């Protein structure tokens, strides 16, 4: 039985899919982190975000995070899904779901997974504004 699910897709992410994957009778809880596109950055109105990925490598790095989370925390299953393409305000770029017998491990693994994803997984977002666009984190 596979305890990890990683996905990169240009389709709309589905929280229920992630929930259903990790849900299990042996678990006392599920932690679900859902990233959503915010309407502003540094007080500037955002019109949309455009996500792109080095997909084969990004999947490998997401799998590493899932495997490491399983090794590091007392969790049962973990799902990491990320969207690519143009996302509107309120859309979901990322979902992390973790199930565990006891809640603390699920919370910790969920935070570990999103924090690590933001550091290592080769995915980039371009923020679009009314008057221009910018690659997040990339400019000197």
């Amino acid at each position, binding site marked *: 039985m596979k305890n990890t699910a990683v996905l990169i897709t240009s389709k709309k992410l589905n929280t229920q899919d992630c929930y259903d994957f990790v849900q299990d009778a042996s678990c006392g809880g599920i932690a679900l982190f859902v990233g959503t596109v915010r309407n502003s950055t540094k007080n500037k109105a955002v019109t949309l975000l455009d996500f792109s*990925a080095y997909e084969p490598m990004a999947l490998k790095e997401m799998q590493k995070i899932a495997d490491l989370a399983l090794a590091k925390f007392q969790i049962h299953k973990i799902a990491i899904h990320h969207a690519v393409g143009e996302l509107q305000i309120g859309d979901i770029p990322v979902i992390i779901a973790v199930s565990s017998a006891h809640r603390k491990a699920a919370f910790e693994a969920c935070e570990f997974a999103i924090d690590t994803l933001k550091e*290592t997984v080769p995915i980039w977002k371009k923020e679009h504004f009314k008057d221009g666009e910018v690659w997040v*984190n*990339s400019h000197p």
Partner: protein
Amino acid sequence: MKIKLLFFGIATDLVGENSIFYELKSAASLLNLKKELMLNYPKLKNIKDFAIAVNEEYAEDDLVLKENDVVAIIPPVSGG
């Protein structure tokens, strides 16, 4: 020695390409490749910083490249 270069994110916009075949002239360490790239693509200096992946794994400067390696320029990631 011929390698394939991939550019992502801001690097794609700066270089104007997604991927190119590249003839590496100097000895085949990643550090030498980085030096060549900065000379040939000075616009890469407009990225805050970048990592390099070889064959889909992050790599350090002392890595020795082989013919047909796929070398990706990885600007600071911003997923999530």
